[in-house]
C-alpha cells in the first residue's frame, strides 16, 4: 500500500512533536529506529524532533527558558547510542484530541470500509465511530459515505489472497471479448464505487487489472498462486499505458479534463471552437474510448484520428437506431474487424 509522500507542513510537524512526547513518556528507553518504525517516518525526522523537543519548554517564572523549564533527555544515550530517554517533562503528558475534520476523515473512511466483508460487524464500526467522536475537540464534520453492499466477489478473492491460491473467472473486456482467466490475486483496489482485482494473469503472463463487475463465474481454486514478491511489482496507478497505445485528440471544456484524469490527458492547446480545449489521451483501442465518449454526450468530442471518430459515431448511431422501430432491432455487436 503506497501513499504519495506529501510535503510536510508546519501543521504535520507540530502534530508529530505533540504526539511524540506522550509516546516517549510511556517508553523509558526506546531506539530512534523503533520510534521511526512505529510512526512510519524516517529516523532523521525522529532525531530532528527529539532535538527540538529537548530544547523546548515554557518561559517559566523568570521568563528566560531556564534549564528546569525545558524538556530534557539523556544526551549521551541519544548522541552515542541513538536511544531516547526522556528525563524531564513540561506542560504536556497526554495525547492530543483529534480535530473535528481529522475525526470526520477517519469516520468517513470507516463507513466506506464497512462494505468490506471483514468489516461487516456494524456494531464494532459504530462503537469505533462513537469513540472517535468523543475523542475529537468539536463535533466531527458531517461527511458521510453510503454503505455499499458487500459483493460476494470480494470475499472469494480475499479468501484466495489469504490462502495463496489462484482464482478463475470469465472476463469480458471492453472490446466485448469474453475469455477465461486464471489469476494469482494480489490486491483488491477500489476507487469510490468501482472495485478492481490486480493480479498476475496466466493467460497474458503479465500483471493485469480487472473490474470486479466484469467478472462472471468466479471461483477460487486449489492451485497455489505463484510468488510475485508480495505486490512489489504492482505500479501505483491502476491503468498503465503501453507502447502500443494509440493517441487520440479530443475537444472538451477545460474544466472537464478532470473527468478523464484516469486517462492522463495531455493538454494540446485551444480548440477551434470557442471555450473548448484540445487534449490528447492514450488508449489501447477505440472500444473503451467509444463507451467513454458516448457516456459524456455534449462534453467530449473526438477529433482525430478519423477511425476513432468513426468508431464513436458508429457506436452512438447503432444505439440511437434501436429506437427507430418500436420493437428495436437486434443490437449491433462489436465488430472484431473494426479496431
Amino acid at each position, binding site marked *: 500500500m503506497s501513499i504519495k509522500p506529501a510535503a510536510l507542513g508546519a501543521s504535520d*510537524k*507540530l502534530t508529530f512533536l505533540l504526539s511524540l512526547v506522550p509516546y516517549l513518556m510511556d517508553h523509558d528507553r526506546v531506539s530512534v529506529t523503533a520510534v521511526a518504525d512505529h*510512526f512510519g517516518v524516517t529516523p532523521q525526522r525522529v532525531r530532528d524532533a527529539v532535538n527540538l523537543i529537548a530544547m523546548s519548554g515554557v518561559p517559566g517564572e523568570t521568563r528566560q527558558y531556564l534549564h528546569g523549564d525545558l524538556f530534557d533527555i539523556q544526551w549521551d544515550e541519544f548522541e552515542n547510542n541513538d536511544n531516547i530517554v526522556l528525563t524531564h517533562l513540561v506542560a504536556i503528558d497526554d495525547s492530543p484530541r483529534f*480535530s473535528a475534520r*481529522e475525526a470526520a476523515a477517519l469516520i*468517513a473512511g470507516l463507513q466506506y470500509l464497512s462494505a468490506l466483508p471483514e468489516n461487516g460487524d456494524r456494531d464494532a464500526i459504530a462503537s*469505533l465511530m462513537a469513540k472517535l467522536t468523543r475523542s475529537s475537540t468539536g463535533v466531527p464534520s458531517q461527511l458521510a459515505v453510503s454503505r455499499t453492499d458487500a459483493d460476494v466477489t470480494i470475499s472469494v478473492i480475499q479468501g484466495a489472497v489469504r490462502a495463496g491460491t489462484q482464482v478463475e473467472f470469465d472476463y469480458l473486456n471492453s472490446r466485448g471479448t469474453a475469455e477465461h482467466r486464471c489469476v494469482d490475486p494480489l490486491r483488491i483496489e477500489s476507487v469510490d464505487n468501482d472495485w478492481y482485482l490486480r493480479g498476475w494473469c496466466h493467460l497474458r503472463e503479465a500483471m493485469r487489472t480487472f473490474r470486479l463487475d466484469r467478472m462472471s463465474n468466479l471461483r477460487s481454486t486449489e492451485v497455489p498462486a505463484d510468488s510475485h514478491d508480495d505486490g512489489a511489482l504492482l505500479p501505483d496507478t491502476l491503468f498503465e499505458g503501453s507502447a502500443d497505445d494509440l493517441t487520440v485528440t479530443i475537444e472538451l471544456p477545460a474544466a472537464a479534463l478532470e473527468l478523464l484524469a484516469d486517462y492522463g490527458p495531455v493538454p494540446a492547446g485551444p480548440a477551434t471552437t470557442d471555450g473548448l480545449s484540445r487534449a490528447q489521451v492514450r488508449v489501447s483501442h477505440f472500444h473503451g474510448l467509444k463507451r467513454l465518449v458516448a*457516456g459524456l454526450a455534449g462534453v467530449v468530442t473526438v477529433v482525430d484520428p478519423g477511425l476513432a471518430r468513426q468508431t464513436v459515431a458508429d457506436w452512438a448511431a447503432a444505439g440511437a437506431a434501436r429506437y427507430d422501430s418500436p420493437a428495436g432491432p437486434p443490437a449491433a455487436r462489436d465488430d472484431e474487424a473494426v479496431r
Partner: protein
Amino acid sequence: MSPTPEQTHPVTVEERLFSLVLALIATQIGLTKTEILSTVQGYRQRFRVGGDNASLERQFERDKDDIRELGIPLETIESQGDPGSNHHLRYRIPKGLYDLPADISFSPDEIMLLKLAATVWREGSLSAESRRALTKLNSLGIDSTDPVIGYAPSLRAREASFEPLSKAMDRRQVVAFLYLKPGESSPRRRVIAPLAVVLHEGRWHLYGTDQDAGATRTFLLARIVGPVVTVPGLSAAPADDGQGQRALAELDALWQAQIAVITVEPGSDAAVRLSKRGGPGSAADSVELHYTDANILADELAGYGPEVFVLSPPALVDAVLARLRRVRDAHAPLPEMEIGR
C-alpha cells in the same frame, strides 16, 4: 533591521507553534497577547518593547488559527473587570480539553481498522487530516494487529467544490455558487448553509439549507459551476450530528422509489455489469435498475450504445436517445476527412 543578539538560530515555524502550545497549556489563568509576544520562543526574539509589533500580532493571529485547525482547544478569556477590551484578553489551552479523554482506548484490531480507514483518502486535504489523525493515534503506542492483506480501497473527491464546501461546513459559513441543472440553459446562483457532504452511489452531494427557499436541498457537486464563495455576514446554525445520515437517507429513499426498466444484449458488457447491479425484470433480458438521478443514469446508459434498450420511464428513453443522437451527430465525418477518402 538587525536581529536581536539573543537570536542564535532562526526559530522554525514548528518550534514557535510548539512553544506557544506549551506556554498556553502551562498557564492556568491565561496569558495576554503582550505576555505571549514578549516571552514565548519565536515571538520574543522579534518583540520590540514599546515599539510597533503589528506584524508580530498578525503572526500570532495566524498561529492561533493554525493551532485551532489541529483540534487544539485554544480559548479566549475576557477580563472580568474590563469586558470587551481586546487588551486584557487572555489566552490559554485547558489541559482537560486538550488531552484525549482518559477512558478512551483502542484495541489493536481497532488501530488496524483506523489505519486502513486513513489510507482511504489518497488526495486532497482529507489525506492530510487522516495522516495527522494517525500520528495522534500512534502516540498511544498501541501496536496494530497485522493489516488486512490485499486491500487498497480509496475514496476521492475530484470535484473542485469539495474542499471549499467541506471547509465552509466546518466553519459554519454560508456559501454561494452557480448550479447548472440539466435541461436549464444557464446556471443559477444558490445560497446555501451546508449541513453535510455525502458520497452516495459514487457521487458527492451537498446537503444544505437553501437560504432563498428556506428548506433543505441536495446538490450534486459535479453540477456546481465555477468557484464556491463564502457569503460574508451570514453564518449557519450549528448542525446536529445526524445531518450526514439524514442526507443519505433522503437519497436512499429517492433511489428506492425510482426504477428504470431496460433490456440488455445477452453476453454484452451491459449484460454482465448492469445485471449485477439491478434485479431481473419481468420481460426476457430485462433488468430493473434503481437510480437517484435520471440524467446521470442516462449518461451511463448512453455509454453502452446499442447494448442497452431503455423501456421505461419515457423521460429516460428520451434522455438516452437524445444523448446518442448528439454523440452521433457530433462525430459526423469532418470535411477534410472526406476529401482524404
